[in-house]
Every structure is written in structure tokens, then in C-alpha cells.
């Protein structure tokens, strides 16, 4: 006990102001925020922050925007519980608490010059989007880009305008599917794995990034492997319960890893023997 102990607490958030709100679906909203200290958040794609509403609590939320010079960043939040519901009532100009960014990020550097296959299910698009935007902003640094997006139904599709843009771009391939169509749906129907037969990849040059609900991983990874992508080039982002984001509270522990610090982004080959991971 010799080192000087800090007078600040890592549990104390800094304030950020909401500058723009966009309703994405019935249950999701996009928030654009900026830190009151005027500095950029300084995150890497795939990292998350702890969103704090005083009196309600905290929730880990992925940063959905790509790192940039600007000092704003975006969160896309689905209403499921206390914090995520309370924030839906916030208006622009109101303030929330932010801790972080925390955690590991997608292999931005490692993928440079390679192909990337993004597989995003439902709200998994939120963390993936940060990386996708980054790649699109640096399009020339990467080779073939394929984006697969699956939603349970058309109403749950997020970022509609962006999806349309992606679909219309000819420098990337965008495929999507819904589990349960509505009468207006003309696209693909079926779980996300049904999109795999529709494209080819060169396994020697391809990275695969998978983010989605827990059930999705096992099946998508099987498909990716079937395309010949090795485990050490598959990246996943995992969700766990988190209370501190500091590697202490124990809630996010999977075997010997703490998702908040060793994750949320994992190289699949590193966790193949973590029984509880997927």
C-alpha cells in the first residue's frame, strides 16, 4: 500500500450532452452525444461505454459511431429495462453520465488490406456499425466488404437509410434477411445463415466479424468455418451482465476472462475452449 491513491473514483462518470436524437424503431433510439469537456470520446470500434442516469443506474452500451476527429459520438439504445427505458424519455440538451470507453476493439489494423465479412443480427448491428463506418471511411484500405444483416422482422431493422445506401453501393456487398416477413417485405426470408450460400469468399484473405444475439453465434460460426475462414480470423462481440466495467464486479466473467476488459470483442480461437462463452 505505498502508491498514492487517487482522489477520484473510477465509478464517477463524466457528463455528456445529447445533441441529436433519432427514433430508429419502436424500441430503439439513436443518441448523438458530446462530452462536456469538449474532447472526443477517443474510442476504438467495438468498445463500449457505461451509460449512467443518476437515480436509475448504469448500462453498458456500445459506441455505434466510428472514431473521428469530431467530438460527437453515437449510441443506439434498445429499450429493455430501467436505464435503457429511462434514456428514451431524454430530450436534446439533457445530460447523461458516461464512463469509458472500455474493452477491446475490432482488429482495425490487422484487417487492413484484407476482405471483411460482417455478420450482424438485430441489435448486433450497433457495435458492428462502428467498424463498418470506419471501414467505409477508409474504404481503400480494405479489400472486399460483405455485410450480412438479419432482423427478426422488418420492423426491427435499424438505420434504414444507411442500409439502403449500403445496398446501393457497388463497392460493398450488402445482403439482408428477416426471420418473419410482413406483407410488404420483398427481400430474403429466413435466419441469417440462409444468406451464406449467396456469396463466395477467399478464405485465405478474409476476416469475419460476428455480432448478434447469443443464439446466433454458434450457427454463424459454423457457416464461416464452412467457408474456410479459420477461427483466428473470426471475431465476435459478446454481451454479459456488467456492473463496473473495471474487471472487478465479477458479473461478466466467463471462465478466466472478464468480458468488460478482455472483451467484449474476442478472437474466436481464443475462446473456443471457454465452455460458457457461446
Amino acid at each position, binding site marked *: 500500500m505505498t502508491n498514492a491513491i487517487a482522489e477520484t473514483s*473510477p465509478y464517477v462518470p463524466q457528463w455528456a450532452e445529447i445533441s441529436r436524437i433519432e427514433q430508429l424503431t419502436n424500441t430503439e433510439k439513436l443518441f448523438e452525444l458530446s462530452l462536456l469537456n469538449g474532447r472526443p470520446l477517443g474510442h476504438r470500434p467495438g468498445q463500449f461505454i457505461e451509460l449512467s442516469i*443518476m*437515480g436509475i*443506474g448504469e448500462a453498458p452500451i456500445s459506441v455505434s459511431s466510428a472514431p473521428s476527429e469530431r467530438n460527437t459520438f453515437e449510441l443506439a439504445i434498445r429499450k429493455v429495462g430501467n436505464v435503457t427505458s429511462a434514456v428514451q424519455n431524454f430530450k436534446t440538451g439533457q445530460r447523461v453520465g458516461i464512463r469509458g470507453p472500455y474493452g477491446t476493439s475490432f482488429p482495425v489494423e490487422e484487417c487492413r488490406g484484407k476482405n471483411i465479412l460482417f455478420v450482424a443480427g438485430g441489435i448486433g448491428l450497433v457495435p458492428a456499425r462502428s467498424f463498418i463506418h470506419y471501414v467505409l471511411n477508409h474504404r481503400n484500405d480494405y479489400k472486399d466488404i460483405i455485410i450480412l444483416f438479419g432482423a427478426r422482422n422488418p420492423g426491427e431493422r435499424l438505420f434504414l437509410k444507411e442500409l439502403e445506401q449500403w445496398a446501393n453501393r457497388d463497392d460493398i456487398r450488402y445482403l439482408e434477411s428477416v426471420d418473419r416477413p410482413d406483407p410488404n417485405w420483398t427481400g430474403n426470408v429466413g435466419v441469417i445463415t440462409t444468406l451464406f450460400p449467396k456469396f463466395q469468399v477467399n478464405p485465405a484473405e478474409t476476416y469475419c466479424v460476428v455480432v448478434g444475439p447469443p443464439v446466433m453465434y454458434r450457427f454463424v460460426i459454423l457457416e464461416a468455418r464452412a467457408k474456410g475462414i479459420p477461427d483466428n480470423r473470426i471475431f465476435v462481440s459478446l454481451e454479459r451482465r456488467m456492473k463496473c466495467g473495471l474487471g472487478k464486479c465479477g458479473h461478466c466473467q466467463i471462465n*478466466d476472462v472478464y468480458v468488460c476488459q478482455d472483451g467484449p470483442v474476442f478472437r474466436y480461437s481464443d475462446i473456443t475452449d471457454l465452455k460458457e462463452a457461446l
Partner: protein
Amino acid sequence: MNLRIMDKGELKKFVQNLLAHYRVEGVVKNNGAYLYDTIDSPEQLCMDFDCTRYPPKKYFLPPRETLFHFSTSPELEVSPVFESPPQVIFGIHPYDLKAIAILDKVFSKDPPDPHYLKRREASFLIGVDPKRISPHSFWADMGAASVNEGFDLMFTDLEDSYAVEIGSASGETLISTYARTQPATGDEKSKRVTLRTNLYSKSLINGLDFPSYEIPKLLEHSKESPIWRENANKCLSCGACNFVCPTCYCFDVQDEMDLDLKQGTRYRKWDGCLLKDFAKVGSGENFRESRTARYRHRFYRKGLYQLDTLQDFACVGCGRCASACLADIADPVRVFKKLKQEYREGGK
């Protein structure tokens, strides 16, 4: 090693002097059990006990601890709360000292946790060697029969006097300011060694029948052992094994608003991985849904998962979990021995 000798009668005066300057926490007997509690006279202090029901971790990681106060109106404001009452904790067995060293590692690892560290810094730790061994203890197996550091003072009962090892500068100050002691003679030193050796061998009696370094290997082999499910069938998901453990530190974080609905506190509270909803998330998914998964997780955490972080087991062999478990399934010795047996049989 700086070893001093304190007459038996002097102990009372020492405690009395400490009481005049510090809050003193020590072991008292209550309802037939040994517990850590605040002492207000030297008579209450118990130096001869087998094992306290609860470890001293509450002094650094209280069951409920305020992290900060906040106010939402008129201004959004937060002020962190650090409570670090100067305190003397008198009568800590070596295995608990070792456990505190483990918690120190966890809470000083990056990013450090000042809430814990400040309490820790303001505490004097006075150890005492056990004279008796609780029926469930196996600390000798876990390398926690004695410690060479992690205390300010360390007492050993030499029958007609106490040997006091000085472990830190503040320990030195305490003892020189508040008590009369003399240097230990060679005889006294060797008596202390003999006592400790005897104790060590006695603690082995209830312990493992194989060296503890085999535990990680055993666990790696035993993911599918039937013992997890058989025992977990009896598990009450009560978390008693977590809460009484000197090295368990998981917590939950919650907000509490004051009645004015403008101010409040964010606090943390002990949590336990055996509790049903420990790994449940907002969407309803529970990542350790089954009792078996939760039950197993604790043993793996103690014997395998934490090895990298701690460079040690997350178990010091106090046996408190075994005593606290009403279903009688939490005893690491029984579980590890069983795994060893399965391993031997399987190996044939």
C-alpha cells in the same frame, strides 16, 4: 525478522492504549460463534479462536458501500465518497491475511479501486497465529499456514508470553508507542517455530490427500464430472459460500434516490455467483441458468480461473464455506478429493 516478546499481562494495556486512539475491531464470542466486531474493552478481545464465521473483508469491502452521492437538480453533480476510518483490526489468522493480500491484488490492479484502497490504507492489521483448527480448515494445503508479510504486527501465543513479529514501520510505531516488549531470545524464536510447525501438520489432517498444485489440472479434467450435478441438486442458491469467503469480492451496483427524488447515492453491495440471477441480463438471457453451472463456476474460480490474475489460488483453505453451507456441499476438500478419486479411477 524483527521479533519482540510481550508479557501476557501487557496485552491488556496494549489494547487499552490502542482503544484510546483508534477504533479497534477484534474477535468476540457471540451466540457461540467467533465474530469480528468493535471492541470497547480489552476483556472482549478473543485471541484464541478456531475460525471466525465471517472473514475480516468487511472492513475493506463493506457489505454495502456508498460509491458517490449525486444530485440531479438544480445541477447535475457527483461527489465520490471515500470512507477510511483509521482502524486497528486485531486478531487475524495467517490465512485471512493471505486473503487480504489477494483482495489487495484485485483492487489495486488497473484500474485501481480507491474506495477499497483507502480503507485498506487506513487499517492496521494485527495478525495472530491460530492455536486451534476448525474442523473444515485446510489452510496448510493452500499455502496459508503462516505468512511473512501483509501484517503490521503478528502475534504468536508462546504460553507464558506473546511473540510479536513486526511487519511494517507502522507496526513498529504501534508497538513501541503503546506497549512494552523486549527482544526475543533464541529459545523463544525456536519455540515459535516449533509451535508453527506443529500447527502446520495438524492442519493437514483435515486437508487434501494430494498436493494442491494438482488442483488446476484436476479441474481441467473434470468439467463433465457427475459431482457437479449431484451436489448442485442440493444447492439452495443461497450464496452463503460466497459471502463467508475471504477471497470472494463480487458486487452489484445500485442507485438509491432520496425521498426528495433529486439526490441520492450509488452504492455497491456484495453479490454472489451462486445466486440465481447473477449472470442474467436485461433481455432475459441468463448465462448461468442452471444450478450446476453456478455451483461448478465457484470451484473453478477458486482453483483455476483466477490463477492468472492472482498468481495464486482464490482459496486460502479457511473452510468457512464448508461450515456455512447448510446443504453440506460447499466443502472444497471433499469436492477436490472426489475429483482426484475420479481422476485416479478414470486413469486406470
